[in-house]
């Protein structure tokens, strides 16, 4: 069974270019003939994840796998980790700076948006080591 794979190195140094990987994922899913509703959910989940990696973790990697029945997105960084995952999942909770707020993010909607847009969201995180987020969207 063929699995389509994409890998991205997310540059943490530039907020302006954040989202480039998500744009590529979206284009690829469209080329693969994935439905608009699924593309939309994957796009939102991936984009919020990518923005989070740039804001909080100085970048990281993203791996996307397209299976016949699901799309799996794995975002991994070596950032500060999330001390309290339950708190981080609450809508409105954010540790982002004022500068990030001024750029239209850091409203505490990133992780909740990722959860809402995916069928499964798994967060593996360790303070001082990094965070790995696995999201599954079923086709």
């Amino acid at each position: 069974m063929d699995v389509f794979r994409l890998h991205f190195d997310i540059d943490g140094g530039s907020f302006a270019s954040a989202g480039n990987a998500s744009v590529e994922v979206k284009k690829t899913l469209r080329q693969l003939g994935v439905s608009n509703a699924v593309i939309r959910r994957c796009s939102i989940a991936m984009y919020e994840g990518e923005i989070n990696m740039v804001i909080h973790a100085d970048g990281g990697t993203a791996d996307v796998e397209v299976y016949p029945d699901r799309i799996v997105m794995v975002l991994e960084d070596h950032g500060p980790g999330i001390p309290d995952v339950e708190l981080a999942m609450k809508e409105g909770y954010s540790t982002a700076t004022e500068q990030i707020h001024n750029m239209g993010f850091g409203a505490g909607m990133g992780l909740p948006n990722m959860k809402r847009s995916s069928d499964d969201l798994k967060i593996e995180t360790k303070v001082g080591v990094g965070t790995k987020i696995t999201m599954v969207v079923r086709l």
Partner: protein
Amino acid sequence: MTIREIMKLLDAQVLCCEDALDSEVVDAFSCDMMSDVLAFATNESLLITGLLNPQVVRTAMMLDMRCIVFVCGKIPTPEIISLARENGIVLLVTDHYMFTASGRLYATGMLRGE
């Protein structure tokens, strides 16, 4: 309503993708917080915002929006304009405030994507 009609209603200028001015837009979302747009927008095809950075265009791209209206006369940078042009998103700029711009569109019966 076409983007051309929206342009007229908002006394707006077009900054790129003039060839798409006759595209139809039926619903809109007004917001400066891109996370809120990603969380709460449903099927809107028009984004009204006072925020100026490339993420506004990428947010619109993620949601298949066709047009962005910048309010309060804020002119986006050439970088923002070229990103929108490359991706076929019409950029408009109006001197009206977000409240006025949204109100004028709402008064025509434009929906909120519901």
